[in-house]
Structure formats: C-alpha cells, structure tokens
C-alpha cells in the first residue's frame, strides 16, 4: 500500500494490502524518481549476483560490472535527492506477513535523511569501486572482492531506505556480513582472520541490545514502523521509563556498529582489510550506520533526556579517548581508524546534545574527508608498501597528487577554517554548548586540538623531511586511483558550504523541514566558539609543526623520559588486555565448564544409553544362532517353566 503525504512520513496504515494513494497530494507523476527509489539498492545486488556467477570468467573485467552498477545507483540517488528537494517525503509499504492481528510491512521511504544517505553511500561506494580497480590490480580474488563490495553496497543502501526497524535490522546484519567478508578478505593472514571475527562478534554484542530494544518497542507500540513508533511516543502511549530503556538499548546497537567506547576495539583492528574497504566501510558508511540509526530514531531519543545525555556522554568520551590513542599510533591506517572512532564520537555528542543537524552534517562531511584520507593513505601504502609511518618521510615530492590531496583531507578534519570539517565541527561544538553540557563541550574542544595535532603529525611524518628508510620505486598511483581522490578532495573542501553560519543553513533547513521534532535547523552558538575551535585546531597544527617538521621540540618533551603515559597510549589504554582478562577469561572459564558438562555428563549419558542398546543387540544377535535344536530347547524350557508356574499357582497370577 502506498501513499504520499504532503507533510509527513508515509504512514503504513495496517489492514490494507493494496496500493493506496491519498488524493490531493503532491503532483503525482513528477515523483517518478522517488517512486522507484527501491531500484537503487538493487543495482549493486545485481552486480553481486553477476560477479558471483560469472566473476571467474570476467576476471579483471568484473571491475567494470561493479563500477557501472554503482554508477547507476549513484546517478539514481542524485536524481532522487534533487527530486526530494522540491517534493515531500515519499514512502510506500506493502504487507509482508500477517500473524493473527499483527501485520508486518516492508517497503521503502525517501525522506531527507534517507535521500542524503543514499547519495553519500552510493557516491563513496562508486569512488571506492573505481579506486579499487587500481589498488586491487593483480589480486587473484579480484572478482570476489568486487562481488563483496556489491553485497555491502546493497546492504548499506537497503539500510538507509528502510521505513521500519525490522527491515533496518535485516540490512543492519547484512552490512555486518559484508564487513566481515571484506575485513577477512586476506583470510590467509592470521591477523585478518582474527580481525574479521572480532569485528563480527563485537558488533553482535551491540546488535543484541538493538534487537531487545526493537522487540520492546514493538511490544509497546505494536509496530516496527518509524512513523508509528513516533506517533505512539508523541501520544504518550509508551511510559517514560520504557522510552529511556528502549532508546538506550537501541543506542547500544549503534555503539557496536559505530565503534563507540566500550565496543570500539574492533574498528582499529578492522584495518587489516584492504584499504579501499577501510575507506568505504570503516570510515564513510557502515560505521556511520550507528549514527544514522540514532538520527533516524531521533524523535524517540528526544523523548528521553536520560537517553540523550547517555549518548552525549559516551560520544564525548569516545571522541577524546580515541583521539588520545591516535596521538601515538605509528600505523598510518590505525591513526585514521582512531580518528574515525573519535569523529564518530563527535557525531554522537552532537546527536546527544539535540543537535540533529550538526550530527548529520558532520556525518556527511566526515564521509567525504575521511574517505579521501583513507584513499590517499591507500595510495601511499600502494607506493611504499609499508604502513609504518616511522619508515616513511619525504613523500611530498614523489607523490604529486596524493600529497596535496592528503593535505586537503588533513586540513578539513582538523577544522581549519574554510574547509568542510570546520563548519560541521563548529556546529557540533555550538550544539554541545547550547545543549547545556559545558564539560562535554570542553572535552570536545580538547579532542579537536588532539585531532589537529595527530593528523598533522601523520602528515609531517609521511610527507615531509627525509625518507627514514630506503624506498625504491616510489611512484604515483594510476589515474583510476587519483581521480576518485580528486573528486573527494573537492567535496572535502566545498561540502561544508551547504550549511554555514555565513551563507545560510541550507542543509539544516532542508533536513528539519516538516519535522519540528528534529529541532532547530541551526544552533546559534556564541561567536567565541568558532574562534576557540579555530584557535585550538591551529594550535594543534602548530605543535605538530614544531615537533615533527621543525623538530625544535623533542618528541617526548611532554611525557619526559619516563614514558608511562606514552606506553599507556601506545597500548590503547589496555582495553584489549582488560577484555582479555575479564570478559574473555570469564567466557572461556564458562565455556570450559560447559564443555566439561557436555563431555562428561551429556556425552556420558548418551554413551551409556548407546552401550545398553548395543549390549542388548549383541546378545540378541548371538541368541539367533540358526541352530534349530537350540531354539527347540529354549522353547521347551520355556514351556516347562510355564507348566511349573501353572502348577504352583493353580492357573492364577496374583
């Protein structure tokens, strides 16, 4: 059943299972693009299926299949986005299952957030597809890689147009599968195998929370539909405690997927996957799914102050926690991974401070500049065949394109004025301040300083100075790797201008249009916030400059010679070790205990039964000797016994 309404979301009115159009709404026929938005996720699915079936025969040509289908998705997504600018939200649902009075629906919806996410996901996916053609060149499982990319893109696009929680959950798990396959792409490497498992299990822990929250919401509101849930929440049909509980449970799912503390440890390890995968999944799209989920369910979170505060606190803590680890990492991809965790913390902080627009805005700009940084890092790795920044240096002259592009990404993430990251970070800081969390605001400010510092530390160590090891044969990457980076470089600069305090908050106005629940389009913070943000980022850059370019400051001037702090940071606050000693040790103990029960009790019981039956069978088969005389003797003895019994009892058994 389908309907398009002027103002709100498409409403799934239960009990109808045919297409239903509300008359008098927007000019029908013009929304032709949005009507068929369900096609967008199907293109990559088709690519996945084709490559699954014919990948072996297509060999290197599989890249073109993947690129063409994602290009189709991208073009369609852009058309849908532009249509969504002028048209109201479009959504359609059909009845999927009916169990008693319970009706489950499936469908799709194009609202502002979904349309924006469609473009972000398909754009980054398309660029990564193109880039991978150069990066993965020569890999013998090349078609498989493209097939997995297709599967992941399908899942992610499906996730962002789902109109209900159940469908979201299904795609949510599919995204997890895609991520698992791609992290473990080099499965012959032990670390990659372990990282894939870790990513899958850690996110599953969060998913359990999401699942319980989802079921509780369904129990309370009798629907998985977002619109129905919001209606029930608005109508006060759900108790305040229940709203807080479900919101926090759903947030736990987002914590797992978006690598928030304390479930963040899988994300840096996931860097074992190929670099384009890190750009696509672990920077721009999948990890943003948690932020997307919170944004999609924002009216629910907004109904509970406690839930919002939880999100804000966890976000701010993750932001500064991961940023401090990023200060000392020496693996180029791990620095970026911790930076991703930290930036996702920012987004959560924004959402938790009721800054819906700020969170989504930063999600968008971050997708562009972080994908750019990862692709540039991939280009560097492609050139020098190492990921250790201690071994690099002086690459600026050798990598004519990668160097400047990496610098653009670095400037953008550091929040240097006029780059996209500056505007979105400023929005977040303003939201945190206005949201009434001064402590969290200062945490975020310190994290911004750290971000600028470690990003420029990375930049100076990789691109300036002298090569620290002998690097032969360093060459710029091929064009199909540099072009995607250039496009992202442009976006990393200009994407911020869609929502600025100077030229108007176009994105913000559009995002909250028709949904007063989502809050204000633009949070007007005091002017000093912007100045403070600029100052801390420039200060961070300056310190990195002194320490890693001029080298007028010793690298250990802060921690001194004792290096306790440095050791703690290098070991990532020993979170992994802590888990090893507590959760994993406990689980292992429990498993050994259960194994003991299984081996000795359950198996013992089973083996006992088996022994008895086998014994009986063996005796029986031995008794069947084929000797008629034996049979006769037994029959006679039996008869004699019967006769004796008869004689003794007189024919009656009492």
């Amino acid at each position, binding site marked *: 059943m389908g309907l398009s309404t002027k103002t709100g979301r498409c409403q799934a009115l239960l009990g109808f299972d045919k297409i239903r159009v509300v008359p008098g709404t927007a000019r029908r026929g013009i929304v032709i693009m949005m009507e068929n938005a369900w096609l967008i996720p199907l293109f990559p699915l088709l690519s996945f299926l084709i490559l699954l079936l014919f990948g072996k025969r297509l060999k290197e040509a599989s890249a073109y299949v993947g690129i063409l289908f994602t290009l189709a998705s991208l073009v369609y997504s852009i058309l849908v986005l532009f249509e969504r600018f002028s048209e109201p939200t479009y959504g359609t649902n059909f009845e999927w299952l009916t169990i008693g009075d319970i009706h489950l629906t499936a469908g799709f919806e194009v609202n502002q957030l979904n349309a924006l996410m469609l473009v972000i996901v398909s754009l980054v996916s398309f660029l990564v597809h193109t880039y991978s053609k150069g990066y993965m060149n020569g890999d013998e499982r090349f078609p498989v890689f493209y097939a997995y990319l297709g599967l992941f893109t399908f899942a992610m696009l499906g996730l962002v147009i789902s109109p209900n929680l159940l469908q979201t959950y299904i795609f949510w798990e599919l995204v997890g599968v895609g991520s698992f396959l791609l992290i473990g792409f080099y499965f012959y490497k032990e670390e990659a195998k372990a990282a894939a498992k870790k990513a899958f299990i850690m996110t599953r822990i969060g998913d359990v929370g999401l699942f319980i929250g989802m079921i509780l919401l369904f129990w309370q509101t009798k629907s998985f539909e977002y619109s129905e849930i919001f209606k029930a929440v608005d109508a006060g049909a759900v108790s305040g405690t229940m709203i807080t509980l479900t919101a926090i449970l759903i947030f736990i799912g987002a914590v797992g997927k978006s690598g928030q503390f304390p479930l963040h440890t899988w994300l840096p390890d996931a860097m074992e996957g190929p670099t384009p995968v890190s750009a696509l999944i672990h920077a721009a799209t999948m990890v943003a799914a948690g932020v997307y989920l919170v944004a999609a369910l924002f009216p629910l979170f907004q109904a509970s102050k406690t839930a919002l505060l939880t999100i804000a606190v966890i976000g701010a803590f993750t932001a500064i926690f991961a940023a401090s680890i990023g200060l000392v990492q020496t693996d180029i991809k791990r620095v970026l991974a911790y930076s991703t965790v930290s930036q996702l913390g920012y987004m959560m902080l924004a959402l938790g401070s009721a800054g819906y627009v700020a969170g989504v805005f930063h999600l968008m700009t971050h997708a562009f500049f972080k994908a750019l940084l990862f692709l540039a890092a991939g280009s560097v790795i492609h050139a020098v065949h190492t990921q250790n920044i201690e071994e690099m240096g002086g690459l600026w002259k050798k990598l004519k394109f990668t160097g400047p592009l990496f610098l653009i990404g670095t400037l953008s993430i550091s929040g240097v004025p006029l780059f996209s990251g500056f505007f979105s970070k400023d929005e977040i800081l303003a939201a945190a301040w206005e949201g009434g969390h001064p402590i969290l605001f200062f945490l975020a400010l310190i994290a911004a300083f750290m971000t600028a510092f470690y990003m420029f530390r990375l930049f100076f160590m990789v691109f300036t100075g002298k090569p620290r090891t002998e690097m032969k044969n360093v060459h710029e990457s091929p064009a199909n790797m540099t072009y995607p980076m250039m496009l992202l470089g442009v976006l990393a600069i200009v994407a911020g201008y869609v929502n600025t305090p100077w030229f108007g908050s176009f994105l913000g106005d559009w995002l909250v249009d028709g949904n007063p629940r989502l809050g204000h389009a633009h949070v007007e913070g005091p002017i000093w916030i912007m100045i403070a943000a600029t100052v801390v980022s420039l200060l961070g850059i300056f310190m990195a400059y002194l320490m890693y370019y001029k080298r007028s400051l010793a690298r250990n001037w802060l921690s001194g010679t004792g290096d306790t702090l440095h050791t703690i940071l290098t070991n990532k606050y020993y979170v992994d070790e802590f888990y090893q000693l507590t959760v994993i040790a406990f689980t292992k103990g429990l498993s050994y205990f259960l194994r003991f029960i299984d081996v000795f009790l359950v198996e013992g019981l089973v083996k006992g039964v088996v022994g008895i039956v086998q014994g009986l069978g063996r005796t029986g088969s031995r008794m069947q000797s*084929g000797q*008629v005389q034996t049979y006769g003797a037994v029959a006679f003895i039996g008869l004699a016994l019967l006769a004796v019994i008869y004689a003794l009892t007189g024919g009656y058994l009492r």
Partner: protein
Amino acid sequence: MSSVPASAFLALALILFCIGLYGALTKRNTVIVLISIELMLNAVNINLVTFSKYGLNPSITGQIFALFTISVAAAEAAVGLAILISLYRAKKTVNIDEMDIMKH
C-alpha cells in the same frame, strides 16, 4: 479286557516322548533327529489310542485319528528324508550344527 491300567500306557507314552524330545534336541546326526521326531509322534499315537479306550467317552475316533497320524507321519518322513538327501548333496554333511542357514 486286560488289567493293564491306563497310567501304564500313559507312562510309556511319556517315556517315549521324552526320549524322542531328548534325541531331537541333542543329537548331531540329522537322521537320528528325524528318527527321534518319529518316536515323539508315536508317543502321541499311544496317548490317542489310550484315551480312545480309557477316556471319559471311549470311542473309535481316537484310533482312527491315530491311524491318520501314522499315515501323515509316513508321508512326512518321506518328505523329510528327501530334503535331508538334497541337503546332504548340497553340504556334504548330515551334521546338524552346520545347518545354520536360518541365521543369515
């Protein structure tokens, strides 16, 4: 008639039957087993005749039935011996322990 009591006939039949049963269950030679079965049949015949004379309703039926049994037993012996001979041809033995194809 005679003064031999019925219990004497019945005892004779019992003894004959037991000897026959013992032979049928223990002897290894198939021919002896067949003969033992004949003994058991004849013990039954003696019973039939005894009761046709000394039973509650003495009548000729028992004796006719005994004659009938004897003729059927003769036929049975013929068939049995024929089977035994063909078995012997197949297995080259009359030892009953080796005739265990029912097991399989």
